[in-house]
């Protein structure tokens, strides 16, 4: 009776952690993530030997490193997904502060590895990209602000989170790293949408974008040429995009065969930004569709589970995390098939890169922690409101 009146008793601390975790975690999402890690290693075997040969390492040097980082990432993922949302939030806020300070320190202490943008800290054996770690922390902090604003007498959290977003976007844009800043902005956007953005604002924004785009297209020749060039079905076959497109075509439905691909020798970013092209060439459309299905499952399933979530913070943070992972994958693959303009962005879990893999591990670990099934007070509804929602 007490339970019925006051909701489910909080789970006692004596309850074993692992069985509870296994019972409540989203096993489908977890399997998809592990499958993606596996595919990433498999593709690394194909895509990274040319780079290793170029840099004078043994052929599978980068695969070994990726396996190491992947193990770390999986460990982090498991640990994070076992935490309670409150703990996740606390650690994420601390992590966000650390990453934010690291990001602010980049112009003074960072290196650019000769690529023209200062995004990394060099640690000797490895390099760290703070913006990768900033993203999940930022999502949690922004979600916390927004959730707080929904309390009566709470702080104006939406404004705070917007200010924070703008600051981070500006910092990233100054590196310059427009891909990450767009991702951060997008993450904030979806959370604001779910947190109840006024419908008038959404319609207005859409109208402005369409109107502005039309005006720019008809008035600015430069802009029009960019768009026409993008819509043009022909692509210069000597650019990265051209190689990627041709690789997908070469691969066909079943691929040219393991290790038979050619594109990895021509593409400098075959192991990161264009790994999907390597996958398409060697393993064919089958493999690519499998990868797409895995990402779609992770995102859609997480969003469906979050629909039932009653805690605004968990709902918002989970939405943000699922969306940035999904959108990052979407942009990466969209560029390779020329649905989107060229933008360097890694494929989460699959692309080579220590920071990227571990940060993705943290992000989905948090996502799993947020999407674990927990009591949602349905019984209280039934009793107190006689089934009304």
């Amino acid at each position: 009776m007490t339970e019925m009146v006051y909701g489910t008793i909080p789970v006692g601390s004596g309850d074993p952690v692992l069985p509870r975790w296994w019972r409540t975690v989203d096993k489908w999402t977890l399997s998809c993530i592990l499958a993606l890690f596996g595919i990433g290693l498999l593709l690394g075997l194909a895509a990274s030997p040319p780079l290793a040969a170029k840099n004078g390492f043994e052929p599978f040097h980068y695969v070994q490193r990726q396996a190491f980082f992947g193990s770390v990432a999986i460990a982090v993922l498991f640990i994070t997904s076992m935490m309670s949302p409150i703990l996740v939030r606390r650690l994420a806020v601390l992590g966000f502060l650390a990453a934010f300070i690291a990001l602010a320190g980049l112009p003074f202490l960072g290196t650019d590895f000769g690529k023209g943008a200062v995004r990394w800290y060099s640690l000797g054996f490895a390099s760290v990209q703070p913006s990768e770690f900033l993203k999940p922390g930022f999502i949690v902090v922004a979600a916390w602000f927004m959730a707080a604003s929904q309390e009566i007498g709470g702080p104006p959290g939406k404004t705070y989170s917007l200010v924070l977003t703008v600051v981070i976007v500006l910092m990233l844009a100054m590196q310059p790293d427009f891909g990450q800043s767009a991702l951060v902005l997008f993450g904030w956007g979806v959370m604001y949408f779910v947190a109840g953005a006024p419908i008038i604002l959404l319609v207005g924004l859409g109208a402005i974008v369409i109107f502005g785009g039309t005006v720019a297209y008809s008035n600015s020749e430069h802009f029009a040429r960019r768009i026409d060039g993008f819509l043009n079905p022909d692509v210069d076959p000597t650019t990265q995009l051209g190689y990627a497109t041709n690789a997908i075509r070469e691969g066909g439905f079943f691929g040219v065969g393991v290790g038979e691909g050619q594109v990895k020798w021509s593409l400098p970013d075959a192991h990161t930004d264009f790994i999907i092209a390597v996958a398409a060439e060697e393993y064919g459309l089958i493999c690519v569709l499998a990868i797409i299905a895995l990402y779609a499952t992770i995102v859609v399933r997480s969003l469906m589970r979050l629909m039932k979530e009653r805690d605004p913070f968990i709902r918002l943070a989970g939405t943000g995390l699922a969306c940035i992972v999904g959108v990052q994958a979407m942009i990466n693959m969209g560029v390779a098939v020329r649905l989107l303009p060229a933008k360097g962005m890694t494929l989460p879990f699959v692309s080579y890169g220590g920071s990227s893999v571990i940060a993705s591990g943290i992000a989905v670990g948090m996502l799993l922690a947020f999407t674990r099934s927990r009591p949602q007070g349905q019984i209280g509804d039934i009793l107190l409101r006689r089934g009304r929602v």
Partner: protein
Amino acid sequence: MIRTPLRPLARILKAREQGQNPDAIEAENKRLRHEDDRDRSRLQAESRLLVMGVAFFCAFLVIGARMGMLAGSVPEEPTAQASGSPIIGQRADIVDRNGRVLATNLDTHSLYAQIPDMIDPAKAARELAAIFPELEEDELLEDFTGSRRFLWVRREISPEQMQAVHDIGDPGLLFGPREMRLYPNGSVAAHILGGATYGREGVNSAEVIGVAGVEKFFDDALRDPSRGGAPLELSLDLTVQAASERVLHGGMMLMQAKGASSVLMDVHTGEIISMVSLPDFDPNDRPRVLTAADNATDQSDSPLFNRAVQGVYELGSVFKIFTVAQAIELGLINAGTMIDTQGPLQWGRFRIRDFHDYGAQLSATDVIVKSSNIGTARIAMMIGGERQRDFLGQLGLLEETQVEMVEAPTGDPLLPPNWSEISTMTISYGHGLSSSPVHLAAAYSSLLNGGTRVEPTLLRQDGPQNGPRIVSEQVSAVSRDMLRAVVTEGTASFGDVEGYEVGGKTGTADKPRPTGGYYDDRTIATFASVFPADDPRYVLIVTLDEPSVEALGEQRRTAGWTAVPVAAEMTRRVAPLLGMRPDVETATPTGVTLTSN
């Protein structure tokens, strides 16, 4: 929306009366309102999450579909160059006024290598080097075994070479169809046609783009698929052009000139029937542009230089007819007016002389016939600088011609910085103002065709231009008579061609030194002629650069001894080709009776 107030007064008062804490009511109401808010935002979030889930699903679906479309399409062959828009290989022919081909296309092939497909690079390199002696086996092998995937081996190959490469049998060696621009007449009309080269290249076709002359001027039109390959009809006559070139070349050799040009123009239509500039070149194998490495101070030394259009020279006494014609048109003089020719004419610190002393006075006709600088200068002073400039402007001598060649704007006349009185006097006899032979041809045509302006053109015309009137019919006729008199009794006596009644005016101009002043022994000799003089049909300008011929024991550099005989020979050869019947007095057979039975 009606909200429950947090502190409903009725309940608070009641609670106070009963001694309860009213804050509990507020807390309870607050909790209820909070739960309401949460439920509302949860329901909203639920629908929005559903929207997002569907959106993500659709986006992934689109990417998958696009991947499928790409995977199902045929891979492109890589090319060496970017191609944004489809390459159109066709290029229209260029023909002369009678439809004879001046420029056309020949199907040929290019040879390229898809290196990943090559089976035996060493053998291929060895055999290619044997087929193409200009290729090095080592370099080919290096290219075939390096990191390249694609290589153009040769731009154009002959059918025999194609067969030989085919016989190597390597699947990595492939042929791309090409159209090659061919000028079947070789160097005939080389400067007018210009030349063509390859633009963007793909494996299936390559653009042929014009690099000079009408090929470049009409590049867009020639490549425009909407014209359906209709040939470009020029005003040139191929046989006349070839004959002119041959005569001019012979004349240039004979007169030891370093360059020569000729322009033959229809006086009524402005059509350029032939235009020659020597030395010339073969547009099939166009020489490269002179660079600093060639120690060339001047592009005009290059065979690519079109003297007739680009070469602006002080053309000398050929201008005198403009001065006299204008003075007659203005009513200042008539053909018989006596002009003071006492020399030398002193003007400030300048002194104007004649080639010979012609005595105190000459009639206006004789000023032209004997080519008196002093007499012309005096007539020019009557006209005045402003009217002179306007008149020359009407004749088109002060601005670039509109002839349809990319080189035309570079033939911009050189004008004196200020049109002073001394400029007026020197320009009246063709010094101090530089223009090209085409300018002169158009101006002579305008003056002599009855007095209406014609613009020079390289496109075939259907009728006379009927431009604005410049001088009256009478003045035009008087001018023709004067020019005819120059040939019959004046400086151009070598210019007469029996039966064609040639009229013309000679001009010998000292060449200006680059350092200032004039050379004593270098001249530009020009003969501007018109035939037949009583009813003009064609104007022929012949210009020789630095001619020199020994005659009667003297070194002759004047036009009368150099340009005039060349022009006469050209007229003799060309006029019949133009379909003109020589107007010889038919010898009436005396003492012969036509009988018939």
